[in-house]
C-alpha cells in the first residue's frame, strides 16, 4: 500500500494560504477519492500549526467528511517512497471555499493555543478511512476568535 504526503506549504502551484476568521471559511487541506478511479485511503498522520505572528489565541481545528471536494487548487500528493505510482486520491490545498461537508461528520476536533503545533498519529487500525466512492474524503478546517493569520497542515495517508 503506497503512502503519500500532502501539505499546504509553499509548494509551487499550491495557491495562497487563507487567513483565519471566527468561522470556517475555507479548507486548509482536503483529500477525496477520484471521480473516475475511486480508491479507499486512510489518513494516519495529521500535523497542524500556525505560521503568523505569535500570540496567545485559541485555534479550533476540525476534520470533517466531505462528499465533494472544493474546486480550488489541486496538488499531486507526494509518494513517500519515490518508487510508488502517482496518487489516485485528489488533494486540494488552500481553498477559499468548502467542498460539500457531511453535517455532523467531524472526526477530529481540537482546540490548540496559536503558539502550539499539534500532531496526531494513528496506530495501525486507528486511521481515518474514506470509502472508495466518487469525491468522498476529508477536509481540514480551522477558525479562531483572535488569530487572523494563516495556518499550516500536513496529512500523511495511504491508498488501499
Amino acid at each position, binding site marked *: 500500500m503506497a503512502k503519500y504526503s500532502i501539505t499546504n506549504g509553499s509548494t509551487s502551484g499550491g495557491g495562497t494560504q487563507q487567513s483565519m476568521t471566527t468561522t470556517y471559511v475555507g479548507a486548509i487541506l482536503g483529500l477525496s477519492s477520484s471521480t473516475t478511479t475511486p480508491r479507499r485511503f486512510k489518513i494516519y498522520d495529521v500535523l497542524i500549526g500556525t505560521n503568523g505572528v505569535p500570540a496567545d489565541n485559541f485555534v479550533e481545528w476540525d476534520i470533517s467528511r466531505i462528499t465533494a471536494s472544493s474546486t480550488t487548487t489541486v496538488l499531486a500528493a507526494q509518494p513517500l517512497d519515490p518508487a510508488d505510482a502517482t496518487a489516485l486520491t485528489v488533494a486540494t490545498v488552500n481553498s477559499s471555499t468548502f467542498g460539500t461537508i457531511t453535517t455532523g461528520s467531524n472526526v477530529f476536533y481540537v482546540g490548540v493555543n496559536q503558539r502550539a503545533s499539534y500532531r*496526531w498519529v494513528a496506530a495501525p487500525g486507528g486511521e481515518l*478511512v474514506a*470509502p472508495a466512492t466518487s469525491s468522498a474524503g476529508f477536509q481540514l478546517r480551522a477558525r479562531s476568535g483572535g488569530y487572523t493569520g494563516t495556518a499550516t497542515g500536513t496529512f500523511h495517508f495511504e491508498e488501499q
Partner: protein
Amino acid sequence: MRNAGGYAFTFDVGGIRQEADSFTCAHCNRIVIVKPKCDPMDLGGMCRLCDKMICPACVNLGHCDPLEKKLERAEAKDRALRSYGL
C-alpha cells in the same frame, strides 16, 4: 490506555507540552483523545457486539453499525450509480 488507536502531541517553544493516547471510534471513525486521568464514562464505551471502543455519540445511539459496514454500503451505492451511468 492499552492498545491505543493513536497518539497526540502538542508542541510549543518549550518542546512537547502534552501527550495523550487516542482511540478511533469503531462505528463513526471519530478520534477520541484520552485525557490523562479522565473519567472512563466520558470517553465513550465498548460496543459489546463488535467488541471495539466507540465514542460517546455512538454509545448514545445504542446500536452496532461498524464503520466497515458503513463503508461497504457507501461503496455499493456508488458502484450501483456508476453502473447506471449516474
